[in-house]
């Protein structure tokens, strides 16, 4: 590879000059060009299509084609760019329209068929109220009358957007846009002005803690690696987000990949690593593409590579496509996987910070942690310490899913209550049904009761409830969800993902799943003390969980029983109902259902009897039919086929 000065792209040379002008002496000469890059000075309308991974679901390609057709047919000139999701997934597909001198209009739920009408109205300075969600301020431009601001949206109020500030606004595939919004400045300033140890100090001072789950102080981890003597050190960005229902890392990468790259560059500089890897899930095709583009662009501008801008600092970043295993989120398992082995955790100590990849000091940081670094170095540790609570600083991203009104991503300051997140930012429970529980932290997380929602987002507060900050996946469960089934779902996930190294985890998770399976299914026969046996199994779950916690090597095994144990302690009545009454109040456990036919409504059409695969329905034509309980498996076909709505669940 050639050095920086030869690969630097000619037309973007001034960007490097701007970055090197850390004192701001020549800021006047760049101001105009930066305004153009920030889209604050438009010569023609700008249409933004918010397209992250969800765009595939929304068929954003079709919308894009429709826009192009409109522009061609009407001979309008406009610039069309694609950004990423702004976290308001429930309002997608979203489209932004910015006219010269005006704030950006953000439109929601745009359909291909609406494109013509929307553009016709908006491009003629007349806002179509049907699709308008809000407007986004643009510096030096005028607001539209009577339209609320983005920051005034109920979902956004109460959020503190630092990492997600530019999501959906900035073009993620253009490095100049990122630089114009202040990007890479702190990286350049840092490598020219601060020694590595000073960066570690600043990060430690800021109180930043790992966002991946453990919550270990990032600065301290870096210092261990910095002080370890070695000829080669590595930085690994852990983007192997495989927790079902969590997608914060993906959103950060898709929305603003350069922010992550800059964080990685700063972290690598701080620990003295000249090689960094990003371990990213292979399924995240768009995130892979955007990240690889970002790394490439940074390299061609001379911000990565050897001897970066003649500073003597070198860094190469490589994107590794993770082949997919939940356990590889654990740092030592991840390192094994990167070395071409089965992703099984190693015994700690030695910790990766002293002996990691290829036996060299390696720091493994999560995407969100690294994205924070960029901002801490830009604004200083004091600024960061002012956000959050005593021991938890900064913001945290959560992905909200399940039965909430507005699913999507939120970024809140530490200390925000969970109730605020669920009821204000997510708009409460879907269909106004009652909240039953909140599941926090994915398969190794716990269930919280509605009473516990007043807890704040804070490492210590959540720990006191037995929950970790975890991955940030938040699942809202209402009356339609069965908690026994939810516990079984997580357990089956953990059982499948257990790497098999520690016997308590491998066999224990299997045994737990068996016990849960027997609760959610009807026994083959009722002979003997089946019920008692099953109850005994439940009684032993706690001691089994304790053994798993005590004897498993990594977090997967230690935390695998969490969802089940929290459900068992907090929602014991549901378990008892499943055991003694064979009843699932949410009617989710299909095998426990028994159907009956209302004799008043049944006309004796014989349809259900003919369709029943188990011959569980008897009756003569023209006369009411009956379900033989012993034979019924609860499949529900009879209910689905009945034309007279005569079949009910007992």
């Amino acid at each position, binding site marked *: 590879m050639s050095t920086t000065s030869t690969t630097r792209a000619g037309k973007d040379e001034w960007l490097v000059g701007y970055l090197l002008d850390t004192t701001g002496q020549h800021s006047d000469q760049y101001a105009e060009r930066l305004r153009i890059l920030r889209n604050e000075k438009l010569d023609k309308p700008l249409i933004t299509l918010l397209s992250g991974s*969800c765009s595939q679901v929304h068929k954003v390609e079709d919308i894009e084609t429709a826009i192009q057709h409109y522009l061609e047919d009407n001979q309008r000139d406009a610039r069309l760019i694609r950004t990423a999701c702004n976290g308001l997934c*429930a309002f997608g597909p979203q489209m932004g329209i910015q006219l010269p001198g005006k704030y950006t209009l953000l439109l929601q739920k745009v359909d291909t068929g609406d494109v013509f009408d929307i553009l016709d109205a908006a491009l003629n300075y007349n806002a179509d109220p049907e699709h308008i969600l809000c407007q986004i301020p643009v510096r030096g431009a005028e607001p539209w009358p009577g339209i609320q601001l983005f920051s005034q949206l109920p979902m956004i109020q109460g959020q503190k957007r630092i990492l997600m500030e530019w999501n959906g606004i900035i073009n993620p595939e253009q490095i100049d846009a990122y630089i114009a919004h202040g990007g890479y400045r702190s990286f350049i300033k840092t490598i020219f002005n601060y020694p590595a140890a000073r960066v570690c100090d600043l990060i430690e001072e800021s109180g930043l803690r790992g966002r991946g789950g453990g919550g270990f102080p990032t600065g301290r981890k870096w210092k261990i690696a910095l002080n370890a003597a070695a000829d080669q050190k590595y930085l690994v960005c852990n983007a192997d987000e495989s927790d079902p*229902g969590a997608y914060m890392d993906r959103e950060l990468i898709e929305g603003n990949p350069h922010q992550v790259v800059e964080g990685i560059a700063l972290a690598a500089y701080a620990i003295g690593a000249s090689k960094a890897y990003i371990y990213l899930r292979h*399924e995240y095709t768009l995130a892979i593409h955007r990240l690889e583009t970002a790394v490439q662009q940074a390299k061609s501008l001379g911000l990565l590579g050897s001897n970066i801008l003649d500073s003597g600092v070198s860094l190469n970043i490589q994107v590794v496509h993770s*082949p997919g295993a939940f356990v590889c989120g654990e740092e030592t398992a991840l390192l094994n*996987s990167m070395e*071409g082995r089965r992703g099984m955790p190693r015994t700690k100590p030695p910790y990766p910070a002293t002996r990691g990849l290829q036996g060299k000091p390696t720091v493994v940081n999560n995407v969100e942690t690294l994205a924070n670094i960029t901002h801490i170095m830009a604004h200083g540790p004091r600024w960061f310490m002012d956000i959050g609570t005593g021991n938890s600083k900064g913001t945290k991203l959560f992905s909200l899913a399940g039965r909430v009104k507005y699913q999507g991503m939120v970024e809140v300051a530490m200390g925000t209550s969970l109730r605020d997140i669920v009821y204000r930012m997510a708009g409460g429970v879907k269909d106004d049904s009652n909240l039953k529980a909140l599941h926090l932290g*994915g398969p190794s997380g716990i269930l919280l009761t509605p009473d516990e929602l007043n807890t704040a987002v804070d490492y210590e507060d959540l720990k006191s409830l037995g929950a970790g900050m975890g991955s940030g996946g938040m699942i809202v469960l209402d009356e*339609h969800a069965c908690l026994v089934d939810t516990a079984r779902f997580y357990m089956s996930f953990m059982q499948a993902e257990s790497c098999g190294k520690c016997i308590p985890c491998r066999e224990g998770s299997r045994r737990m799943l068996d016990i849960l399976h027997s609760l959610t299914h009807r026994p083959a026969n009722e002979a003997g003390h089946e019920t008692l046996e099953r109850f005994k199994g439940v009684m032993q779950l706690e001691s089994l969980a304790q053994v798993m916690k005590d004897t498993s090597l990594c977090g997967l095994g230690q935390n695998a029983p969490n969802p089940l144990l929290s459900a068992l302690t907090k929602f014991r009545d549901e378990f008892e109902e499943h055991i003694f009454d064979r009843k699932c109040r949410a009617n989710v456990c299909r095998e426990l259902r028994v159907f009956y036919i209302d004799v008043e409504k049944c006309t004796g059409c014989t349809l259900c009897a003919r369709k029943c695969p188990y011959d569980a329905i008897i009756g003569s034509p023209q006369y009411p039919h009956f379900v033989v309980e012993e034979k019924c498996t609860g499949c529900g076909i009879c209910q689905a086929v009945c034309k007279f709505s005569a079949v009910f669940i007992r």
Partner: protein
Amino acid sequence: MDQELSQILERYAQGNPDTLISILQEVQRHYGYLPEGIFSHIARHVGMAPSRVYGVATFYDQFRFEPAGRIHIRLCAGTSCHLEGMPSLTRELERLLNIKEGQVSRDGMFSFEKVQCLGVCGHAPVLESGGRYWEGVTPEKLREIIQELKSRPSLV
């Protein structure tokens, strides 16, 4: 060893186990799965025992060991999709295609698998086939989707 495989292997330095997963990924990209015959060649190239190479390949979700159907459907197994009724969709799909998860229908047309969260939880339940996504799928919608996939001329 066929030519494509040796071409892939040539791109990676010999005797370096670190490259194993990248090699396997590239081989799978080329063949669509990992054919049985390749393991000994790859093992020799990276300097590992074939059993170890096989052990690594079977550990990860990404690798498959038999070809998928011409139409391969991926069902999201994330929490949101589970809550919104993925179990009944799975049963309906099994019934419609007359195959179980991981199997290929007799005419080689269909196969389906459950995959880790596709990350579009806001639109659960979600399924994907050939780069196309369907959101908010119900059993009725599923029947239409299957019909639609069957009638795609390019695949028959």
